[in-house]
Each structure stands twice: as C-alpha cells, then as structure tokens.
C-alpha cells in the first residue's frame, strides 16, 4: 500500500526492479536518471561493490504528477541479482507497491529467469504478500542480442497465467522500452490507488447511510417467586 507523507500530502510509491544477476536492472535506473528532467529527479544512489555490482540496492526518487492536491513520488529500487544476496533482496522488498521483473532474453539465462521469478514469489510470501495482488509488469531485456529467446517463449515461462500482466521488450542500454515499462507500472499503481480511494469512499458512504438501530432493551421481569423470565 502506498505511503502518505502526512505533512507534505505526498503519496509515495515504492517500485522494485527485480530479476537475475546482470539482467539490466541498474541499467534501467541509470537510463531513467539520465533522461528525466532535473526538477523531477533526485540523485541516483548505488550501494555497489568495487566491481560495480549491486551490493544492497540502487535508489532513484522521482517526482511525478499532482492529483487532487496530492503530489506523487515514485521511488525506484533495484535488488542485487546475485543468488547469494537473498537476505538483502528480502529487506528491499519491504513495503513494496509495485514490481518490474526484468528478464534476460539470452537463451542460456532462461533457467536463471525462472529461478529469480520464483525467488520473488517466495520472498514476497515471507512478508505475507502475494505477487498476484501486487501491480507488476515484465520487461524482456537485451532484445538486441542475436538469437535471443523469442517473446512467445518468454511469455510462456514467465507470463503463463489466466490474466497476463503487461510485458515489454527492451534494450536498457539504449533506452528502448525503458520508459514504456516505467509508465506502465506507474499507471497500474495509480489505478490501484484510485480503486482503494473509491472503496474507502463507498465504505464511508455506507457507514453514513446505515440507520442507527436502537438495541432492544430487554429487562428481565422479576417474578414474585424470585424466578426471572
């Protein structure tokens, strides 16, 4: 659920870019950071190893539209993709609102894609969350690589469900598909906020419309013999 800054009247959404090691999560954030207007972005913070591999997370805060007096702020995180950093991934998933699952289109990465996707489900479950209840999109990255896996195969292994989630082809190094992915997940989050807002308003109206029914007062009549009816 989105977090509201009570003082600034600002709705904050946390989006996590998840996926196997070296699939392009950080590259997505780097591209976004370099192509968003200065007024709408904060610094890109990377907690990385000396070899530039994500150690804890990357973080990029973005300001977006104001709706009905509420400012919206999207906070983009990545997780470290390497298998060994699972405890760190669990920490980053705390209070998550939306997910971009970045899959690597190279044929020899299919198993890692599937394992990472299952790892996402498992880590969410540890926090009592279900991926099907969270707005998420799929991004099939590295589409420029020759002989990459066909889209229908990626859809089969990652999006094979009754209601398919939006999916996007991308080349994060050149920016192809990067903003389409970000806009799609952001719009899903705003749509969820609208649903929650309307449900809260309906519930409030229902409470107001419910007539107050006096609880019948039952008074036990005392009988002369001391019994009560």
């Amino acid at each position, binding site marked *: 659920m989105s977090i509201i800054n009570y003082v600034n009247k600002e709705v904050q959404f946390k989006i996590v870019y998840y996926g196997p090691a070296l699939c392009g999560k950080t590259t997505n954030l780097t591209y976004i950071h370099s192509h968003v207007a200065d007024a709408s972005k904060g610094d890109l913070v990377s907690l990385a190893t000396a070899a530039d591999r994500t150690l804890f997370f990357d973080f990029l*805060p973005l300001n977006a539209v104001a709706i009905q007096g509420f400012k919206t702020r999207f906070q983009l*995180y990545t997780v470290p993709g390497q298998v060994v950093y699972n405890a760190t991934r669990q*920490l980053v998933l705390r209070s998550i609102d939306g997910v971009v699952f970045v899959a690597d289109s190279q044929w020899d990465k299919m198993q890692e894609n599937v394992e990472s996707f299952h790892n996402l489900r498992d880590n969410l479950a540890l926090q009592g969350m279900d991926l099907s209840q969270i707005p998420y999109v799929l991004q099939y990255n590295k589409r420029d690589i020759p002989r990459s896996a066909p889209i229908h195969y990626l859809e089969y292994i990652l999006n094979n469900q009754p209601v398919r989630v939006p999916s996007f082809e991308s080349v994060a190094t050149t*920016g192809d598909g990067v903003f389409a992915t970000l806009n799609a997940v952001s*719009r899903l989050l705003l749509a969820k906020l609208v649903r929650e*807002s309307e449900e809260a308003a309906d519930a409030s109206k229902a409470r107001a419309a419910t007539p107050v029914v006096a609880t019948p007062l039952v008074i036990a009549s005392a009988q002369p013999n001391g019994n009560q009816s």
Partner: protein
Amino acid sequence: MNPTPIPPTTAPDVPDGTNNLPSPAERLQSLLADFLDKSQATFSLVIDRGGSILCQQGSLSGSVDNSILAALAAGSFAATKELAARLGEPEFNTLHHQGKHANILVNTVDDDAVLMTVFGPETTVGLVKFYAVSTVSSLAVLLKEARTSSDSQVAISKSDLDTVGNIFPQ
C-alpha cells in the same frame, strides 16, 4: 449578589467533528518540533521501514534530498536488524552513527516506522537519546491515529487519472 454569568464566546468542543483540534499531522509536527527544541538536534525524519517519509521537522544545511536519507536510513536499520537476529536479539532499537561534525541516531518507533535524528556538536548523544525515548512512544500513538485519519486518505477518482497522460515523458 451573584454576578450574571457571562456566556461563553466560543462553542465548547463537541465530539461532532466541528471542533478545531489539531490534525494528527499537525500534532506529529508539533511533537517533532518540541523534540528538536529540547534535544538541540537539527533535523528529524519519521520513516516507514520500507524507506518512505512519513513526516519531517527541522532542516539540514545544503541541498540534501530527504528521500535519499530516508531510503538509506531504513536500509541501514533493516540490515542491523538482521545482524541483531544473528545474535538472538529481535532488533537493536537504537542505532548511532558518529561523525566529526554530524551524528545520526535512529530509534524504533513501532513495527512500521523508525525515527531518524541528525544532530551536531552543539548537543550530546546522551541528551538526544534521552528525549528520543519519550518522543518515540508519543510518535507511536500519533502514527496509529494518523494512519486511520481522514486527513491521510487520498480522494481521487478514475476521471482524475484519465486526465494524466504519460506519467514520465521521456
């Protein structure tokens, strides 16, 4: 002779929502302002454990992005919680980062929030810790109220969303 009673000039507070009690957000700010005043600290942030800002008070010199501070503090606190777990502790409820000119103290507020305080050499960690303890217990009560307050509900409809084009134009 008894004086004639003077009628009240203002209506008494009644529980019908028409009184002028400060909102939970205003009380949160007032509580943090009082904390900064007493502890002589510079700046405080109440942060959701996922890294989002719930409220803030005070200011820092230079152009510091509060959301980055919040994300890093929440991450740091979460990491030490894992350390604590390895030592059989549920969590370390206070975290102190000591620098030459700036210090950071992070305290647990409740299961969902922490208080981050920045202070300089004009005060001491003992004083800040002392006032932080009572502040976090009051914060926990106020946050519980703020989470359910109508002030913190967003009232937007589908038609509002329809007017929004690309959220992030390239």
